């Protein structure tokens, strides 16, 4: 099986060709403003090296394009928000906790209708279908092309959202519709926020996916195209374009998954040392541990599948202060090769310290020969302490685990760390992201409250539901395994209520 993994980052577009479990070729090219030509260049160079061109079974692309659009407030569409749940939750309408500048760009129309469900599946009140017809007419008149629909307790019962979509489609057959129960977890505001973020990215997702498909066609590759998701799994591009939010954190996820694959370790801490930050995550069974709580994207509170990451203000470009000795969080970033001392500049960076201390062999070592040994020692000690503390924070328990190091600034990581069994450096670490994309699998997840079942029955039912979801998404059912299960008894609710979160993953089903 030959798979191509591509990582479209802010600076570089990387591509790797994976033959079964082996990295055959890897290339790194600059990301282009149109995205597409950068991918074409990367693919052309990759295929050139692999000549004669092998048959490719699948292409996986990971991108930070959609997160960047939200953070930078660009290429976002105006959307209509529909909330179903009145008379409940009336005082906190959609967009209530968005940063005002982003809300101004995205908030087209806001409609709130009677309906929704209780925690036990009973309706709060009957769904106001007449009101929904009127809303559909207004949306048609407004010319808005993307709609986000959120109903109270829809993760337990999505029927109001489905009915609203059907009514909307009668009036506006062409609008893009995002339903909250397909995206998020319990927590109305956060799920609605994810839904509306997704809705405002639908146009961009469509045009970007188009560019990916065109780039692939132009390079002559005939293989299914997948987009990688926050949790290290993939969706067919044709389906993924409806869920751009699921790729928000795919960059760090792919980097961690790639690190696991390249080091052949399933349970470890991973540190990715870049130019400005070090991102630390925790791998369990080869997948990143998920963040439990609220994660902010561009200032919006969200709650969905995201890796738990700790970002430290320490990278190869971090600026060093001499009096008193301090490192970061300010950084020269991608200007490292122009501005740092060893590369001929006049700014003192973490990289300069590492070269002076003999930890790295980069640029002109003579340009840091004048640094005081005491300053070098103090800065190295500070950097090592930051990484040690960060690594320890991300550990799930006290037992010693391996630490996998990737990224351009990996020489900042000490070789001995308390609580770490070994520090592992991997081949191809500079393209770990693209490798992580290439190896992605398909997942299915359930997060639901079960009542009147024993714990074992509830877990079995959750597993059945998750496996069905994964199979629908393209997984080979024979390869599905549970990678995460968590159950939380719910205070105050009667009848043995148990909230179960369970996730299965499997390989992509072989294509005929």
């Amino acid at each position, binding site marked *: 099986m030959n798979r191509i993994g591509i990582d479209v980052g802010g600076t570089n577009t990387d591509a790797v060709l994976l033959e079964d479990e082996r990295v055959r070729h890897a290339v790194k090219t600059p990301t282009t403003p149109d995205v597409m030509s950068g991918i074409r260049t990367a693919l052309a160079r990759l295929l050139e090296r692999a000549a004669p061109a092998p048959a490719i079974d699948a292409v996986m692309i990971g991108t930070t394009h959609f997160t960047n659009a939200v953070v930078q407030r660009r290429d976002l569409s105006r959307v209509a928000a529909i909330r179903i749940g009145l008379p*409940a939750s*009336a005082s906190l309408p959609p967009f209530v906790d968005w940063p005002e500048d982003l809300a101004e760009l995205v908030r087209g129309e806001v409609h709130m209708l009677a309906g929704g469900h*209780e925690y036990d599946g009973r309706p709060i009140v009957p769904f106001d279908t007449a009101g929904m017809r009127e809303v559909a007419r207004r949306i048609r008149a407004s010319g808005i092309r993307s709609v986000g629909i959120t109903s109270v307790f829809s993760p337990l019962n999505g029927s109001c959202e489905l009915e609203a979509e059907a009514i909307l489609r009668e009036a506006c057959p062409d609008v893009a519709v995002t339903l909250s129960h397909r995206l998020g977890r319990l927590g109305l*505001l956060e799920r609605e926020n994810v839904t509306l973020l997704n809705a405002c990215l639908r146009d961009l997702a469509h045009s970007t996916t188009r560019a990916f498909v065109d780039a692939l066609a132009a390079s002559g590759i005939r293989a299914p195209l997948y987009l990688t998701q926050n949790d290290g799994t993939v969706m067919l591009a044709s389906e993924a374009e409806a869920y751009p939010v699921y790729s928000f954190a795919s960059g760090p996820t792919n980097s961690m998954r790639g690190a696991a694959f390249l080091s052949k370790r399933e349970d470890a801490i991973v540190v990715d040392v870049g130019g400005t930050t070090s991102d630390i995550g925790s791998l369990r069974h080869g997948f990143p541990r998920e963040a439990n709580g609220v994660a902010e994207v561009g200032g919006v509170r969200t709650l969905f599948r995201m890796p738990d990451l700790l970002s430290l203000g320490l990278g190869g470009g971090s600026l060093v202060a001499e009096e008193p000795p301090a490192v970061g969080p300010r950084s020269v970033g991608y200007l490292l090769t122009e501005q740092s001392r060893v590369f001929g500049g006049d700014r003192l960076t973490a990289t300069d310290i590492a070269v002076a201390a003999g930890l790295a062999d980069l640029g002109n070592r003579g340009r840091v020969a004048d640094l005081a040994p005491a300053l070098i020692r103090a800065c190295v000690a500070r950097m090592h302490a930051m990484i040690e503390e960060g690594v*320890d*924070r991300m550990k799930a328990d006290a037992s010693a685990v391996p630490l996998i190091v990737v990224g351009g600034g990996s020489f900042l990581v000490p070789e001995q760390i308390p609580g770490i069994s070994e520090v592992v450096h991997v081949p191809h670490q500079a393209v770990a992201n693209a490798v992580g994309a290439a190896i992605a699998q398909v997942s299915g997840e359930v997060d639901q409250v079960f009542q009147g079942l024993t714990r074992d029955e509830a877990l079995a039912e959750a597993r059945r539901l998750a496996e069905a979801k994964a199979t629908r998404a393209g997984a080979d059912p024979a390869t599905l395994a549970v990678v995460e299960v968590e159950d939380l008894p719910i*205070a*105050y*609710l009667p009848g043995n209520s148990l909230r179960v979160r369970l996730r299965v993953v499997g390989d992509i089903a072989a294509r005929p």
Partner: protein
Amino acid sequence: MSTTSLSARQIESLALGAWILGTGGGGSPYHGLLNLRQLYKQGARVQVMDPADLADDAAVAVVSTMGAPLVMQERMVDPGPMVESVRAMERYVGRRFDAVMAVEIGGSNALQPCQIGAVTGLPVVDADAMGRAFPEAQMTSFAIHDLPMAPLTLVDVRDNAVIVARAASWKWMERLSRKACVEVGSIAATCKAPRTGRDVKECGILYTVSKAIRLGETVQAARAAHRDPVQAVLDAEGGRRLFGGKIRDVERRTTEGFLRGTATLDGLDQDRGRSFRLAFQNEFAVGWLDGRPVVMTPDLICVMDAVSGEAIGTETLRYGQRVVVVALPAPPILLTPKGLEHVGPRAFGYDLEFRSVFAEAR
């Protein structure tokens, strides 16, 4: 009657301080805060009054939201039913209220009187009946003083209203109202037994709204000055740092409608090599240092993020968090023999003789 208008900034501080006083429970005040931010934008203001200014025969509404925290994440609490629970009580007892107060200053219930006050103009009394958060209806200073538990009104969003006219005991009040609450979706606005100005002055826990605001301001000021917010809270409130460490294990279970469980912490820095165990029943109840009980309810046991000073709830405890466990002094009424019957360790099923962290310090 003189009142003070709370600024938008004080509302933010109140929410932050109330979450700390929630001692792990009480629910996050985030939604109430969002609602108040909106009401403030529309020009509404919350008036707070000194309990000393209450006339002896003034009528005070005591309010809270009853329900499951998980349900509150989906069905957010609106001021409409909160106000209606108060109006329903006024109609039932045939008298208008002069002021409104929280039964519980810890967690989301701290903001409920403010939401009602912002909408109706009723002043909010600077007091509550717990001085923190507790899981059960009889765990209030009013119950400790044997004030009557009935009547109670319970209102939902659909305009259903239930009045519990009498209850044979606090236990019965809890059973009857809980049943009604579950039926309307495990979330309802309630107005507890009305209190007179004299009741509040003699049996309430006074100045807890100001205390929560002050706590919030302490944390905000420390963060702005890049000082340690946990230490700032300890200094300002006369609290004690009990343990600093990392959460190693969390075990939760639901029994009799409560979230119970334990969390185990491994020490860091000056506590390296020691371990701390916390037991919780919605709120943190008892803490053991190396197997020896060192802190117990009703002393306030707060778990705070070691860096941000943000309070951490029993539902959001998780592996790997760096936390500091601190104790804050409990209101004196809770430390009396009668108070300890209601809220001491035995009331939570721990066969321990109450010993205050602060008694030890003296």
